[in-house]
């Protein structure tokens, strides 16, 4: 399903044009108030753009002008998942998931069957009889995802689906999303670079209601052109081929890390890493924050850490720390450490980062 969108919302000062290809996932990023949610609402049919047009798989969603048309939300076939799960509180989990199929005309048995199938898919079949109030945040969000998918949406809109989850539940949902988004058209609004890297094919950056940048996720984050992307792109990102729990990077050798979605070598990650070498080579990204990087003048001995030999290209004061840039990589260290090492641009140094701080994303 291809989505074509061009929308102007004067009251919110939003004017965007973009398309989403079949089976493509777009990460819509940008500062608060950039108009990301307005775009999703226009697609859902919850707000009416002042001008523009949109079509999904050849069907017109809305159109302004002489032949103006408007498809109400319930006829659009666009599913959504927000920050809050918004499970209907008076229905149990199974009834919540069966609601969509039932509303689309499926009989009770067929709707329940579909609901069971999707509950199993999100690993929540054992919660079927519970009321939403009896679920944890992560469980509720998984059920909400099952509910959205049970209607077979042609396009899935995700508005910061992991923002309200704690750090222990977010990875599970992230890997779940990665699985179910494969082969689907989706737009995910997120502030999290890792979500964008792991889930999205392309990133669209919005600022003040306009699209300021658009491109493949790794490109936007490694060569940011907009202020917002640049602020996100503090993250170090290396691309390469997955080997077990390491990535053979294109230009920085073998980088050890932990697979995204795993918590300290959980079974799922182990399974994946053992299978991977036998299959076709898997492209992967290795990402780690500059704050996890230490800078040494000599290579550390006998350490299980990742070590990169680099040349310092710039020193940038950033708040209470100094960002040491070395080509594509960056390290955040204290001013005292900079003085200690008496760093100046051009110095040959070693960037060292623990494997535990590096997250690997099979692309």
């Amino acid at each position: 399903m291809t989505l074509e969108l061009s929308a102007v919302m004067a009251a919110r000062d939003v004017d965007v044009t973009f398309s989403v290809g079949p089976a493509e996932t777009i990460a819509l990023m940008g500062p608060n108030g950039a108009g990301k949610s307005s775009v999703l609402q226009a697609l859902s049919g919850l707000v009416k753009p002042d001008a523009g047009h949109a079509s999904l798989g050849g069907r017109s969603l809305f159109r302004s002008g002489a032949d103006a048309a408007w498809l109400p939300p319930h006829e659009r076939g666009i599913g959504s998942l927000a920050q809050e799960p918004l499970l209907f509180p008076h229905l149990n989990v199974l009834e919540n998931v069966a609601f969509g199929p039932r509303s689309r005309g499926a009989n009770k048995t067929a709707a329940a069957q579909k609901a069971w199938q999707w509950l199993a898919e999100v690993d929540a079949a054992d919660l079927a009889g519970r009321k939403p109030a009896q679920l944890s945040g992560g469980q509720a969000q998984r059920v909400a995802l099952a509910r959205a998918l049970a209607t077979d949406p042609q396009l899935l809109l995700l508005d910061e689906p992991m923002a309200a989850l704690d750090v222990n539940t977010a990875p599970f949902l992230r890997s779940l999303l990665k699985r179910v988004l494969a082969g689907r058209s989706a737009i995910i609004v997120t502030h999290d670079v890792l979500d964008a890297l792991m889930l999205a094919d392309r990133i669209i950056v919005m600022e003040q209601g306009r699209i300021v940048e658009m491109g493949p996720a790794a490109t936007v984050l490694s060569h940011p052109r907009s202020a917002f992307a640049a602020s996100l792109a503090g993250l170090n990102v290396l691309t390469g081929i997955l080997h077990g729990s390491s990535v053979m990077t294109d230009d920085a050798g073998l980088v050890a890390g932990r697979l995204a979605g795993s918590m300290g070598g959980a079974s799922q990650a182990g399974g994946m890493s053992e299978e991977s070498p036998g299959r076709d080579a898997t492209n992967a990204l290795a990402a780690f924050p500059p704050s996890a990087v230490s800078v040494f003048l000599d290579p550390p001995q006998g350490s299980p850490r990742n070590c990169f030999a680099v040349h310092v290209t710039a020193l940038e004061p950033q708040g209470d720390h100094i960002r040491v840039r070395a080509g594509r990589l960056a390290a955040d260290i204290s001013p005292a450490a900079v003085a200690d090492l008496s760093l100046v641009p051009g110095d040959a140094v070693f960037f060292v980062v623990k494997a535990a701080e590096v997250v690997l994303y099979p692309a």
Partner: protein
Amino acid sequence: MPALAHPKLQGRTQQPWQFQAVPRWVFALAALGALFILLPLFGMVAKVNWAQFIPLITSESSLDALVLSLKTATASTALCLILGVPLALVLARAHFGGQRILRALILLPLVVPPVVGGLALLYTFGREGLIGRSLNVLGIDIAFSTTAVIMAQTFVALPFLVLSLEGSLRTAGQKYEAVAATLGARPSTVLRRITLPLVLPGLVSGAVLAFARSLGEFGATLTFAGSLQGVTRTLPLEIYLQREIDPDAAVALSFLLIAVALVVVSLAYRTPRSPLRTLVPRGAP
């Protein structure tokens, strides 16, 4: 099952000490307020002639009035639901010019004396009224009939239901309705399966308020429907009539009216989750 379903309620019986910011003198005034409501009830109960109670409330005129009151109050509550639910939905959800003025006008019966409401109904639906004149030509005569009683009660009770339900609808918000729509539910499906179940407590309390208000209606009924035994003389009208003739009967019927109201209100607020349950003075009579 109950232990699993209401874990919070279990703790409520033995709640530990908790900080509260209510000054003590407020408790004193609150007690005074409660007494102000409850004392007159006790005063009336003390006046009930228990020896003659059963014969007093089972006299022909008393029973006629009781049955008529229950019938008409039920009918007007049903009418309030049929007309009030759409009205509340439109006021809470739609946006149109003059909406605020419409709301203010619809709530007018809350503040207008019922006797004025009765007169308004009379000059609209009465034999010489705006619409009544045409109806009269068709052989339909509303004023001074049981239909008039139901209309008078609906007129004064409708705002209670609308007000209560509109508040619930606004509190519930539209988030769940929007989700239901994106899941493919048509507007009527959303209303039936999401909106109404979510505001059910507000709907029930609104209907109870409307029923109670209908049961106690006096002024508009007397003005628009008159006081004809078995046809338009409801319990409050009967009480007012008996007050002159037989005070004992008036007190006994008043007690009966309070008992009926109490039963209805406590039945409706039986759900343990409703915060309004504490408002019912248990064992008050």
